[in-house]
């Protein structure tokens, strides 16, 4: 089964993180990504730019509007994702537990809809 591990965290806190600590976090993500690759479970992964770079489309009264900013203001924002292919939820949860993001925010684990 394929699962997306959606990594949520507080962007503002991340902005004010000291440089050395940021390097540590980036290194931790690189090591994690490599572990996923080595285990041959990684399908895709990406880090997203902050929500200040987001543009949202919304149709109101039949008119599609282009809005600057994210679809909703939330305390934690989607910062990146991993798409993995593993046998079941327990395997997905075990990988999610190892994700560095779990220390700074939340990881949402969701299966991909199989058509």
């Amino acid at each position, binding site marked *: *089964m394929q*699962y997306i591990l959606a990594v949520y965290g507080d962007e503002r806190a991340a902005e004010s993180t000291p440089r050395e600590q940021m390097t540590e976090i980036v290194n931790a993500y690189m090591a994690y990504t490599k572990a996923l690759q080595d285990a041959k479970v990684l399908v895709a992964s990406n880090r997203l730019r902050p929500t200040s770079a987001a543009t949202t489309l919304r149709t109101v009264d039949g008119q599609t509007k282009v809005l600057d900013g994210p679809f909703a203001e939330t305390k934690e924002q989607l910062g990146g994702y991993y798409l993995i292919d593993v*046998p*079941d*939820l*327990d395997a*997905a*949860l075990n990988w999610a537990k190892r994700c560095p993001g779990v220390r700074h925010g939340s990881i949402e684990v969701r*299966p991909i809809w*199989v058509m």
Partner: protein
Amino acid sequence: MSGPTPAHRAAERAARQSYGKLVAYLAARTGDVAVAEDALADAFAAALASWPTRGVPQTPEAWLLAAARRRMIDMARRRRTREAATERLLLSVEEVAAEMDPADVPDWRLRLMFACAHPAIDAAMRGPLMLQTVLGLDAAAIAAAFLTAPKAMSQRLVRAKRRIHDTGIPFRLPDRADLPARLDAVLEAIYAAFGAGWPDPSGLDARRQGLLDEAVWLGHVVVSLLPEEPEGLGLLALMLHAGARRGARRSANGDYLPLSEQNPALWDAAAIDEAEQLLERASSLGRIGRFQLEAAVQSVHAARRSSGRTDWHAIVELYDGLLALTQSPVVAVNRAVALSETAGAVAGLAALDELAQDARLAAYQPCWAARAELLARLGRRASADAAYAQAILLEPDGVVRRFLEQRRSRIRPNSA
């Protein structure tokens, strides 16, 4: 009015056991509990109707499976126009059913229980889910026990089963490292089912009464499949000990009798003996836990049957252990009550006072009743009266309310 005969009960047991095994096997192989249940529903109903009168067939699983396969083919035909996914699932059930040896179905009910009590499933739904999938109880019976509207319970069960399938919860035993925590969730769910069946000792509502037996049975399944897990043994011992006293909880005219006023001669000696053996086995395994300690408390109470007295010092010690392990406010209340027996009402009340800040106890009836009893013993009538009033307000069971009213009237100087 006569209840079902032992032969009836035995046949029903056999039907539920075979049903549970087949659901577990088919669900594990297809990942879909609902489809497995659907496939077996009619066959199970037929078994429940026929086995008690005609006897249990020689190979019960084969009997059920043969009846179920007719239904599956029928269902597959009817659903042909629906989703391809459903169709695929039914075919896989049919495939699995075709390749299995119905005379030798592996017992995977424990895997099913672990799926039902998975951390990704709402804790409140784990007990109901197990009762339905492993024992085949219907949503209405489960709803009655858990004081929920049948329709709401039925919807929640459907959603929980869909969640097992959609999220990919596995049907297998957890890894060794995860086993203690995961087993604990299974045991908690079984105990929740037992607790839901507990408040109706008069057996007026047969469905709730039955739940005690069903929970005990789930406990037996766990113990038979994981005989080396002391907490499973502890839970079963605990349920057997508590269950042994169910018939003694009411007087001849239906009044509530607290444990201290029960006649030990009315306790179920066979159940107590079995509980004691289980507890001994558990403690020989050398890993203490919450359910073993709770069972040990019950064991001390049960000893009154032969000794005529209760060793409250032992009970306080056991509650100390439990409190250290669980930090449960309910345990703390029980400990305070036990303490009042060894160190006096003042000490017990002081222990309760320490808990007064705990918001979780504000609506916990036994805490108020215990406080009222101790205040009454100390002659603090006005405070006792107020505490009784609060306990009565919180108690849902009319029989227990009447008992509390009687206790309250004893301390009222102007009572008639």
